């Protein structure tokens, strides 16, 4: 009856969101008077889970699961749910976790609440607070089914240490061949690059930059801050930047600690997707640009003057604080 958490990994190591969902699961387990059981796929060293409140880990080591496969992962998690008599499943709101969660909900006839931003309002009944209307509002959602699935938003609950003692158990779920009737044939991903989903800082630029040839300073600024780069929708529509960088209501959501918007007006659809970021900075020539109403800090000024100065000053700052 413990709380199950799917701890995502990449290249054999836990992702940061794995530790966040583990922290969340610990909170839920505590309130339910039970413990946390994690499931990990092809992770060599599981010991860090011990720091974040996990009491047991079911370790899956299976070469055919080396590349993420939503169906196979859902089968494995469903088997863990049965085996451990699980009633509450916690996972992240990453692209992969959302893919798995919906399949699990169908398989287990479980109610699923995604994009949850806080510890449950109540455990019995289970009511969670989640974003809705593309971050323009929150819904307090009750999950009515026997098995419940909670998808925790990135960077909302935070990573919290809770020292436990961890027992590790090998787990070999039976994965039906049918899982692989949809399978990955190619993954195109720049190794080592900070992704918008995981980044603490996102540097984003819009049509105010005038053309793709001017992105050098945006990339340099991102480089200094260890940030991911993003852009507004028209910038990707015009092919100045790749679609993968488009953030907003119809693009990727951003929930970073710091979001820097350069030459972006702050249209409602853009703001909807980035408002979950904790601190927002805007640099724009137009003091009337709507982004100033949504930002914490702002500079009314020309990006072509301000950004190079900012890069220079940040380099000095980093050198002093290294």
């Amino acid at each position: 009856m413990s709380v199950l958490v799917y701890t995502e990994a990449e290249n054999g190591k836990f992702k940061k969101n794995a530790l966040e969902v583990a922290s969340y699961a610990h909170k839920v387990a505590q309130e339910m008077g039970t413990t946390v059981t994690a499931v990990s796929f092809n992770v060599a060293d599981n010991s860090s889970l011990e720091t974040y409140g996990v009491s047991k880990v079911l370790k899956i080591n299976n070469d055919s699961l080396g590349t993420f496969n939503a169906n196979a992962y859902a089968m494995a998690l469903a088997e863990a749910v049965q085996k451990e008599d699980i009633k509450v499943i916690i996972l992240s709101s990453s692209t992969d976790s959302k893919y798995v969660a919906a399949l699990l909900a169908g398989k287990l006839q479980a109610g699923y609440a995604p994009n949850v931003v806080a510890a449950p309002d109540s455990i019995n009944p289970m009511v969670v607070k989640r974003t809705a209307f593309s971050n323009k509002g929150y819904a307090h959602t009750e999950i009515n089914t026997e098995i419940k699935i909670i998808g925790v938003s990135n960077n909302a609950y935070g990573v919290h240490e809770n020292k436990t003692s961890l027992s590790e158990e090998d787990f070999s779920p039976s994965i039906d061949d049918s899982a692989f009737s949809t399978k990955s044939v190619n993954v195109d991903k720049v190794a080592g690059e900070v992704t918008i989903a995981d980044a603490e800082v996102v540097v984003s630029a819009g049509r105010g930059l005038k053309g793709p040839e001017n992105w050098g300073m945006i990339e340099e600024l991102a480089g200094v801050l260890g940030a991911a780069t993003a852009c507004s929708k028209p910038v990707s529509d015009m092919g100045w930047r790749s679609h993968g960088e488009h953030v907003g209501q119809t693009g990727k959501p951003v929930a970073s600690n710091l979001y820097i918007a350069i030459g972006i007006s702050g249209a409602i659809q853009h703001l909807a997707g980035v408002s979950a970021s904790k601190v927002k900075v805007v640099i724009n020539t137009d003091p009337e640009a709507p982004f100033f109403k949504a930002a914490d800090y702002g500079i009314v000024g020309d990006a072509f003057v301000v950004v190079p100065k900012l890069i220079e000053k940040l380099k000095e700052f980093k050198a002093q604080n290294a």
Partner: protein
Amino acid sequence: MKILVCISNVPDTTSKINFTQDNTQFDTTGVQFVINPNDEFGLTRAMWFKEKQGATVHVATVGGANVEPTMRKALAIGADEAIRINAEPTDGFFVAQQLAEVIKNGEYDLVIAGRESIDYNGGMVPGIIAALLNMNFVNTCTGLEIEGDKATAFREIDGGKETLSSSLPLIIGGQKGLVEESDLRIPNMRGIMMARQKKLNVVEPVNATHATADKSFDKPAPKGAVKLVDPENIDELIDLLHNEANVI
């Protein structure tokens, strides 16, 4: 090939969001409803399959009579037939069960849904349908090619793109990329006239579980005023970000 496009009827992206009845209901006063943007990309891709590969395209929605203008719009864009399941779309699990019934009865080869609807952001309908009907499933799908019963799908992943091979019957959770923005269609007069002749079937819902219920809503606390920093004084910005906001 028989395609079903699942359409969600959502507030236009510019809508102001308010709640009524003691914050338990979304306030639809003055709100304009549209085809969910993710579904519109899917519908447009379905039109391509219709025109280039001779597919038949149906659209389905779970909703009351109030969603019919949105369905008529889908017909005007070029869908052949529409199905409205006459029930309030209260939660994703319920909606998925209703659509699964329509898909089972209609023997569709390809089902195109959106990765999420922009109102309640559940993002679960296509995945639940896939699990209920044992269909192949690709989520956050940004491109789709079909040849015979083989499918090649592209999927957005965090930080990149994945290519998947699959086969029909298949369901996708689609999004931008399935077609380009410039491919989206505004219904023309002829389309609108033709849509009036097309079938809009109303079916009654099957018994299904309400797995979740939105008990109440609230809005983010209003933001304090922006702190403006002089462009000549970048040091102040760095100081604020470091010492006040603690983000660098």
